[in-house]
């Protein structure tokens, strides 16, 4: 921190006051700087909310940005947007931090030297001196991140109209999925799932509750059929076939762990079992069933699926090859579930525009004079075997628009600073085709542009006014859409129902698998968006849901595989394929498929902000364009070296303690009262003062059946409550600061998640041990933590059976510059070193609502308010509200039979109740 004079005086006077020595030191109380011309809508001290949308893998997600005096501090999902319905994921929540990233590009650089945008226009504008300007665009090649933006589509059209010989390409994309659809239907369609109508869900390596496109919406819909209110209720059943343990795998009823390359065989076996059951699918699939090692599993699942025909949804993950997607298409078609097919909203989906190899060939052939890369980072993202670096070097000019100085920026001749998502105008299109406007939440902090702006400039617009272009694109609808955040009725209609080309399916059926040896399963890390957000400390310090590792990636091995290789946690292994090798520390994980090594991608960045290159290893040396995700036949050997990993939860064995209650639905029906004993307070000599029914009692319910571990709540909490990040070394010491954590416990039926934060005990053990009254109980049931009274004895943490209290061991905010402090929520105290902190039920929101209610003469029940975590939870596993209001959702959930108090026997009377995890396994299957 560069201390300002004010900081210094403040510290000085605080120190002096502490010793009562203020003397004649005149306190500088600071200044108040009002507006000159006050915007009519602004109320100082009150947050304004604006609706906008962001792109995730090119698909739009609607967000609401909370802004305090002009700077956004917190995001929420837009309830009106179909891809969000109010929820957001961790990576989306964390985008707010990017806005204040000190490493962002601030000025246009030409050959490494600052230059003006006019210079860029002089070269590449409509009358620019670039050679292709007069050759109808020949030699101009653009590479864009996948996008579905209608405005961008129009700008590309304009550009191509001006330069018909220019080529526009896209990076990434679910190429295999589109290709499979093209083979099966003749068109590159994408599946649309209505999970509110699905009672059986099969996932073939698809992390559809945490990572696949549209996962937020799918989580919401999945929860509708998953939630069970009582022993006589019904719930859906989920089967997952996968290698690494994903959140979806944990949430599922059955998880079959196989290496990534065997998933297609299991899928084919399932298809064979359907054939065996008489469904009209290629009979050839029966061969796959007969030779499958998982025949009994496939048959049992098939019986279940056939019985629920019409209500089955099958997902195939984006890591899987075309054949697996074809098998998935066949399964969906045969079972006739709530799955329809529609054209992808992404521009150029299913066309050669996504062919990275063709792009590299064109570059290598010298056909490209000017390569324009817009918010995409091929130098890191493309497999090294494609030879991007040498090919791109053949382009005379390399124009790169980026937010951070990434790997591609290193070789750019023109480096253009990009505007942040919250500084720009534009639009997006969601997975279902719904369009949404993008509007700025803050005036741009740098003189940058968006891809749309660069496209417009290339197309001859010297000073693109994107708001105007947006208005022209959408006409009158824009004004109506801006406050709501969506363009109504823009969802794409599903394609007419088409028959599957069964021959294509039959051709795709895998031949008998040769022993592939050890398989390297590369797994997208949804936290950092496959490395694109590796600079974002909120995401780097966010524990991976299952291993709870932070900052690093690791070679995740099944216990048996690790034993065979003679390695344990933190041993460094070398993974070799041919000449290429990488070295990674080992993490042993029960549930990981045997015979496979799972490694997250997106680590080991070479550039992209100060944090991005720190920690973790780049796996791309082992990747090829043909096999980008599943690499068979790798060798793994121990090196004898060690590398320290940081995990926030070293112990996952519940020791048989009744902490995370879980039952199958059948068991619950047999014993409906199983949780009641855990929900009955133990006898006590002391009265419970909070028990007295009073108006306004807050409470929370955590539904463990619905928790998928996606960790959106954790980051939402970070953003809302100014939670500091501490770095890998401090996490290793056990000093992470997250108020809300998601514990994972192993069990006989696999791991399960337990969100855990302060449960606001009514007989709180933390309170009576505090010597200075720094933690006390409010009249409305909140265990309050008063930071400014805390002296830091940490006794409260000792006495907290849930260990949810966090301590500021050091001054975590040292080094924050003023611009970084702008992301802080001004309604929450930024805690200094030496004080304890913990979940407050977002008391700042509750007190705000209370003031709103009392000054407005409304009952508190009428003021909508919830905590940041509950607000963003995609499945609604966290429910917050007034437990004193019998009509409130939280009260109803609290009264359900599987509600219980974690550590009930300790006598703490937690206000937050957990709902036992109810599973719905197939009775024909043992695991």
């Amino acid at each position, binding site marked *: 921190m560069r201390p300002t004079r004010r900081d210094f005086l403040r510290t000085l006077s605080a120190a002096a006051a502490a010793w009562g020595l203020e003397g004649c030191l005149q306190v500088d109380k600071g200044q108040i700087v009002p507006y000159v011309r006050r915007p009519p809508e602004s109320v100082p001290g009150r947050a304004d909310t604006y609706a906008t949308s962001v792109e995730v893998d090119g698909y739009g997600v609607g967000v609401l940005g909370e802004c305090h005096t002009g700077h956004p501090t917190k995001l929420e999902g837009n309830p009106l947007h179909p891809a969000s319905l109010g929820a957001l994921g961790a990576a989306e929540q964390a985008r707010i931090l990017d806005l204040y990233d000190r490493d962002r590009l601030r000025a246009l650089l030409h050959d490494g030297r600052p230059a003006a945008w006019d210079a860029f226009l002089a070269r590449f504008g409509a009358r620019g001196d670039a050679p292709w300007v007069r050759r109808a665009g020949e030699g101009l090649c653009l590479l864009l991140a996948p996008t579905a933006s209608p405005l961008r589509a129009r700008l590309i059209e304009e550009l191509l109209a001006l330069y018909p010989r220019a080529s526009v390409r896209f990076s990434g994309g679910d190429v295999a999925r589109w290709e499979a659809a093209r083979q099966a239907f003749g068109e590159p369609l994408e599946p649309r799932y209505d999970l509110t109508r699905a009672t059986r869900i099969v996932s073939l390596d698809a992390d559809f509750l945490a990572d696949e496109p549209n996962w937020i919406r799918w989580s919401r819909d999945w929860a509708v059929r998953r939630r069970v209110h009582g022993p006589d209720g019904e719930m859906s059943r989920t089967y997952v076939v996968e290698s690494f343990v994903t959140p979806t795998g944990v949430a599922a009823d059955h998880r079959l762990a196989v290496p990534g390359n065997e998933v297609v065989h299991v899928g084919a076996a399932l298809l064979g079992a359907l054939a065996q059951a008489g469904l009209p699918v290629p009979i050839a699939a029966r061969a796959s069933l007969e030779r499958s090692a998982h025949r009994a599993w496939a048959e049992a699942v098939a019986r279940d699926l056939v019985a629920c025909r019409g209500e089955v949804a099958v997902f195939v993950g984006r890591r899987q090859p075309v054949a697996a997607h074809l098998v998935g298409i066949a399964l969906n078609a045969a079972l006739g579930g709530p799955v329809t097919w529609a054209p992808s909203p992404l521009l150029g989906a299913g066309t050669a525009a996504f062919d990275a190899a063709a792009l590299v060939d064109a570059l290598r052939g010298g056909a490209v004079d000017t390569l324009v890369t817009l918010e995409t980072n091929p130098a890191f993202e493309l497999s090294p075997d494609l030879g991007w670096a040498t090919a791109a070097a053949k382009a005379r000019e390399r124009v790169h628009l980026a937010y951070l100085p990434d790997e591609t920026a290193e070789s750019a001749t023109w480096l253009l600073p990009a505007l942040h998502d919250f500084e720009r105008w534009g639009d997006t299109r969601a997975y279902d085709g719904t369009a949404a406007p993008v509007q700025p939440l803050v005036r741009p902090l740098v003189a940058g542009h968006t891809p749309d702006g660069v496209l417009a400039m290339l197309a001859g617009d010297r000073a693109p006014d994107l708001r105007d272009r947006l208005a022209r694109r959408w006409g009158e609808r824009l004004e109506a859409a801006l406050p709501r955040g969506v363009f109504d009725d823009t969802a794409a209609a599903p394609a007419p129902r088409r028959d599957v080309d069964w021959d294509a399916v039959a051709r795709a059926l895998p031949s008998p698998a040769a022993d592939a040896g050890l398989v390297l399963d590369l797994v997208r890390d949804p936290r950092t968006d496959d490395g694109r957000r590796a600079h974002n400390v909120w995401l780097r310090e966010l524990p991976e849901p299952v291993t709870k590792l932070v900052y690093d990636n690791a070679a995740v091995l099944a216990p048996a595989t690790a034993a065979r290789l003679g390695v344990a946690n933190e041993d460094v292994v070398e993974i070799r394929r041919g000449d290429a090798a990488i070295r990674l520390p080992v993490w042993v994980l029960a549930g990981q498929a045997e015979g496979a090594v799972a490694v997250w991608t997106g680590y080991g960045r070479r550039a992209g902000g100060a944090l991005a290159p720190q920690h973790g290893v780049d796996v791309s040396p082992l990747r090829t364009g043909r096999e980008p995700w599943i690499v068979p036949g790798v060798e793994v050997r121990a090196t004898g070296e060690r590398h320290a990993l940081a995990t926030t939860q070293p112990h996952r064995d519940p020791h048989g303690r009744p902490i995370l209650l879980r039952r199958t639905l059948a068991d619950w029906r047999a014993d409906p009262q199983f949780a009641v004993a855990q929900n009955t307070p133990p006898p006590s000599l002391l*009265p419970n*003062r909070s028990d007295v029914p009073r108006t306004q009692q807050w409470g929370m319910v955590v539904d463990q059946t619905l928790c998928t571990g996606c960790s959106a709540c954790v980051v939402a909490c970070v953003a809302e409550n100014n939670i500091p990040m501490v770095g890998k070394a401090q996490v290793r010491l056990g000093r992470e600061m997250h108020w809300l954590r998601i514990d994972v416990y192993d069990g006989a039926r696999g791991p399960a998640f337990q969100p855990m934060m302060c449960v606001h*005990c*009514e007989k709180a053990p*933390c*309170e*009576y041990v505090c010597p200075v*009254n720094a933690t*006390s109980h409010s009249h409305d049931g909140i265990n309050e933590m008063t930071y400014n009274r805390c002296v830091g004895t940490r006794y409260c943490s000792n006495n907290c059976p849930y260990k949810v209290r966090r301590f500021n061991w050091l001054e975590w905010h040292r080094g924050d510059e003023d611009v970084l402090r702008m992301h802080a929520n001004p309604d929450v105290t930024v805690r200094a070193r030496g004080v304890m902190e913990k979940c407050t039920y977002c008391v700042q929101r509750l007190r705000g609502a209370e003031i709103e209610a009392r000054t407005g003469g409304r009952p508190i029940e009428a003021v909508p308010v919830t905590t940041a975590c509950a607000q963003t939870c995609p499945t609604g596993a966290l429910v917050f509200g007034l437990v004193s209001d019998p009509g409130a959702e939280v009260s109803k959930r609290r009264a359900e039979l599987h509600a219980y108090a974690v550590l009930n026997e300790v006598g703490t009377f937690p206000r937050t109740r957990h709902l036992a995890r109810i599973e719905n396994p197939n009775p024909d299957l043992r695991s």
Partner: protein
Amino acid sequence: MRRGLMAEFQGPDALAAAIRALRDEGYRRLDAYLPLPHRAVEEALALPKSPLAWFVLGGGLLGATVAYVGMWWTNAVDYPLNIGSRPAHAMPAFIPITFELTVLFAGLAAFFGWAWLCRLPRLWHPVFEIEGFERASIDGYFLAVDARDPRYAADVSMRRLTALGARRVLRVGEEAPA
């Protein structure tokens, strides 16, 4: 003692015997200086019972009251907060501090009561001016006869002390010290 006689004896027993003898003869304003506490000497002087125990009792009661009432008033009356749902007037929890403050106040009473009863600190005193008196803390056993004693008569008393075995007898306060 500002004026009188100071006689030095061989040991505590001789000192005690001399005191007994003088008291039998009606001397009342006697004092002894000796390097160790000695019961026989104290008994011979018929010193009154020390009232210290009463001081200590008073201190202890004061401490207990201050502690308990203070805790009750601050935690249950002035700013009662809901602390872990426990009663604000948490009687059992107030006992330890009540006990500690009882002991503290009683101990302070014992110490300061002692200092007050002994009129300490007092760095200068006429007896320090007496030649050889520094041996009172080493091996000197002194008997002092105050001039205000009803039976005091300098020469007679002096002889009497010598007769009782005093190794030497000094006159004190004859030459007024500066």
